[in-house]
């Protein structure tokens, strides 16, 4: 039978507290198996068994403070034959503080190459700006085998765009008005609390040769005077609103190059024929792409006469900082009751979208009413 006393755990600390016994009397222990954990003033230390054998007796309980040399265990070595009888050679880790583990890791740390590979294959090497990689990912462009236009064949964004039109026929990079449309429409969609009111203006009293565009311009000018809240600019960030006394109507014009919205400034001061002349000139200018930037600015309200092509009602999109847009659909024929008689009439469908952050429903409805009533009249003004 052998005894085991508390060894010197280092740094001249005489006392240790028993934190936990890991074995009981009667247990078989292996050499180096942790039998108890003690805490010195500086560290917790797992104390391993110095011999293999059967524990005969334990001395000291958890929580006891014991001194170096105090008897800890009696171990019967004859019981060790039941276990693998490895030669008792206690490894001397010699840590005076802390606990350097002796448990071997299962990884092989000493299988190494000095440096790396000798000649890494550069066949598939892709050298591309991170932005170009992202772009290629989004466009589904395969960069393999691509030659870039940057220094040393670096692939840059423009190479990816070019490659995209090769790899996916018909892909183009948006420019000009189409590009502008993307940002203005997204901004509007994200920010505006859009509500669309629809109404019909019955055109019983219209002459045969009424100019719809002129009538719409006149009606909008009238409605803006009646309900100026819809002829305004609004900025949520600064919580400001500017209600305009003049009416600048942005008129949506469709073109091959994209959506243009030239602005008829001071629409309230135009004579009907002047409106028509302005429209014709502007449309011509857009076709020839000769429209100046300032002609596209400072609209206070917008008109979209989509019905000239097709469509009855719609949900037009307000362009901030404006707060309203009037959409005019295709003139339809419908049956109404007049003096208890069914009568066929023509009607102009209207769709008015407003930003509910800036205008009340009442303001929008009154505007719609004024607009409709003005359109219903025999002659404008």
């Amino acid at each position: 039978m052998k005894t085991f006393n508390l060894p010197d755990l280092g740094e001249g600390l005489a006392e240790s507290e028993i934190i936990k016994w890991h074995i009981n009397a009667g247990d078989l222990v292996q050499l180096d198996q942790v039998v108890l954990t003690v805490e010195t003033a500086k560290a917790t230390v797992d104390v391993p068994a110095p011999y293999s054998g059967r524990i005969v007796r334990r001395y000291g309980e958890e929580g006891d403070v014991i001194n170096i040399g105090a008897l800890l265990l009696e171990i019967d070595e004859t019981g060790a034959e039941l276990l693998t009888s490895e030669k008792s050679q206690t490894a001397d880790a010699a840590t005076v503080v802390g606990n350097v583990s002796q448990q071997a890791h299962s990884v092989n740390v000493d299988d190494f190459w000095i440096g790396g590979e000798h000649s890494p294959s550069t066949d598939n090497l892709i050298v591309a700006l991170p932005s170009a990689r992202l772009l290629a990912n989004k466009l589904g462009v395969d960069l393999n085998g691509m030659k870039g236009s940057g220094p040393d064949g670096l692939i840059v964004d423009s190479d990816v765009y070019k490659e995209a039109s090769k790899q996916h026929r018909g892909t183009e990079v948006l420019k000009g008005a189409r590009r502008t449309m993307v940002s203005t429409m997204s901004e509007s969609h994200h920010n505006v609390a859009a509500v669309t009111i629809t109404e019909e203006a019955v055109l019983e009293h219209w002459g045969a040769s009424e100019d719809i565009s002129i009538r719409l311009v006149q009606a909008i000018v009238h409605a803006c005077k009646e309900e100026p809240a819809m002829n305004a600019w609004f900025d949520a960030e600064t919580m400001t609103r500017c209600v305009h006394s003049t009416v600048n109507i942005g008129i949506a014009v469709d073109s091959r190059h994209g959506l243009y919205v030239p602005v008829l400034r001071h629409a309230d001061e135009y004579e009907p024929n002047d409106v028509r002349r302005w429209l014709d000139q502007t449309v011509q200018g857009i076709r020839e792409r000769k429209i100046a930037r300032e002609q596209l600015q400072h609209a206070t309200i917008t008109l979209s006469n989509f019905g000239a092509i097709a469509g009855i009602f719609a949900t037009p999109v307000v362009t901030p900082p404006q707060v309203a847009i009037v959409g005019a659909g295709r003139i339809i024929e419908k049956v109404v009751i007049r003096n208890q008689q069914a009568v066929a009439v023509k009607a102009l469908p209207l769709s008015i979208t407003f930003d509910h952050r800036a205008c009340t429903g009442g303001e929008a409805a009154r505007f719609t009413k004024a607009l409709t009533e003005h359109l219903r009249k025999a002659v404008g003004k």
Partner: protein
Amino acid sequence: MAELTLVEAVNLALHHEMEHDPNVVLLGEDVGDNGGVFRATVGLKQKYGLKRVIDTPLAEALIGGVAVGMATQGLRPVAEFQFQGFISPAMEHLICHAARMRNRTRGRLTCPAVFRAPFGGGIHAPEHHSESVEAFFAHTAGFKVVVPSSPQRAYGLLLAAIRSNDPVMFFEPKRIYRTVKSEVVDNGKALPLDTCFTLRKGRDITLVTWGACVVESLQAAQTLSNQGIEAEVIDLASIKPIDTATIFHSLEKTGRLLVVHEASKTCGVGAELLARTAEHAMCLLKAPPKRVTGMDTVMPYYRNEDYYMIQEQDIVLAARELVEGWK
């Protein structure tokens, strides 16, 4: 051939070099009779005597200063600091003298000293016993900074460090002092002090690490391999000078960089690696480079130590994020 632990390989290298170069001397606290706090210098005093293996007082400034003096006068001292956290009192000698001796004397004097210190946490030790401050020394011009992470590399790199004509900070990962074993060839061959070591080849991601984290990184690489991700594991080993060529070659293949180090994140060596990658290899990257590091806190006492230490799972998760998040 016997398998040696990392600390035994350090001892073997010291034996080899003391035998072959009479100018090599050891000094430090308990390096003589006691054989060193971790037994790195066992048997050396018995063999080479007290003039070449010098037990110093508990005075790190003295160890640093004496080593500088010895080195500038023709000896090759290998000074041991018991723990990296205890180097602080010697910093004046190291930074103001050892590191700049060659420059100050316009090459007339050099300082061929090695300053050994065990570093890193994970051994349930108290304050000042768990530091990882390799970046301090990498930031100071004049030092070579080396961290071995296997027995054979500890042997070969320590030989190289002793033979270096400029001061070398040699930081030994004490957590794996005795947990890694391999057959060490005692052939007296030094390993290069300016090169990484590739421990595992892979095509999907490059893990760069050093010190005890090499073990968790290799384990993580195995786990990742089972999940279909092949990691290339590079042991940086030479913290300064940094061998970026090996890393960039690896990035040509993988395009993804994950740096793993136990030292805290801010201004750690990982920051330098990411910066150099951004400067010179940005266009190879398929994903933003990433770090798994210790926290920007004082190393906690041992009860909370595991929260600070990098676990294999941390590396696996970060690697998967880099690979799966950036196809």
